[in-house]
């Protein structure tokens, strides 16, 4: 039983009235708030996209192959993340860590590709100022890229702990977040690359 003296790890953090571990529950609520953030941004984009007939000409200049390759990369990294989680549930820390590092690698590739993509587009004059379409393009993919970056950092930390068998339950948490980032991209890809 917790008492006034034992304060380092509050009893609160050890309870689970819902049966869902607190950490995972929190991640779900984080995702819920993320859904409405991206949802608001994409809803605005879709409305203006349908409002401006000329946007599909602009969209024609996005690089489907880069975007497609990145979709593939994220899907694969998601696979690694979930395999890492499987390893973690089998209490195999080092294996989980290896998979997580592979996931980070996936994120890295994603960002590198995106960097080349952007430089190329900017060099060809498709800057954030060229047209509102491009403003949305850079804002949405940029916001998503930021999430990828954050995810990579946390993944790295979790992997480090997992390698020495610590906080294995966190492997699943960061995994869930990473899959969400993947799912967001699954929608950004058709919205900004395919539909034209």
């Amino acid at each position: 039983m917790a008492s006034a003296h034992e304060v380092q790890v509050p009893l609160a953090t050890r309870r689970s009235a819902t049966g869902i571990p607190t950490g995972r529950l929190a991640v779900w609520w984080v995702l819920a708030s993320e859904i409405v953030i991206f949802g608001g941004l994409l809803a605005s984009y879709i409305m203006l996209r349908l409002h401006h007939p000329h946007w599909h000409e602009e969209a024609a200049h996005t690089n489907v192959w880069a975007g497609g390759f990145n979709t593939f990369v994220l899907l694969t990294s998601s696979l690694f993340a979930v395999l890492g989680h499987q390893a973690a549930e089998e209490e195999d820390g080092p294996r989980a860590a290896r998979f997580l590092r592979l996931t980070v690698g996936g994120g890295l590739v994603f960002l590198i590709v995106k960097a080349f993509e952007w430089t190329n587009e900017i060099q060809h004059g498709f800057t954030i100022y060229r047209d509102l379409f491009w403003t949305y393009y850079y804002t949405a993919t940029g916001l998503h890229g930021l999430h990828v970056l954050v995810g990579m950092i946390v993944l790295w930390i979790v992997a480090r702990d997992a390698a020495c068998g610590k906080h294995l339950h966190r492997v699943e948490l960061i995994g869930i977040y990473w899959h969400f980032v993947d799912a967001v991209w699954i929608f950004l890809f058709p919205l900004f690359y395919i539909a034209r």
Partner: protein
Amino acid sequence: MSTEERSAPREHTPHPNYLAVYGVLLSLFAISVAGPLWGMWWLTLITAFGVAVVKATMVAAYFMHLNVERRYIWYVLLIMLGFMLVLFAGVAPDVLARSGQNWQHLRAVQDAHGAARH
């Protein structure tokens, strides 16, 4: 009630075959890329967005384990999406539309005169 242990152990469900799921996702992805090749807008619509929905649902169900998670997590996430639909429905008549009852975008007028950007 079991409130005092570290974290209520999730009833260890057998993991689905992730590679199989991954395979399905990849083929769906291929479809979404191939879709526009036929150049039919409605087909593109289905292959691009219909498939995207399926893919996202699969990722959520199998990778995020929503299919073995407590039911109401689905509801929470879906309600959030629902609110986004409400937002869209309420805003589109003003922002998506180019003109409506007793109002119009000057842009619409200009476009009519071919004065649109580009």
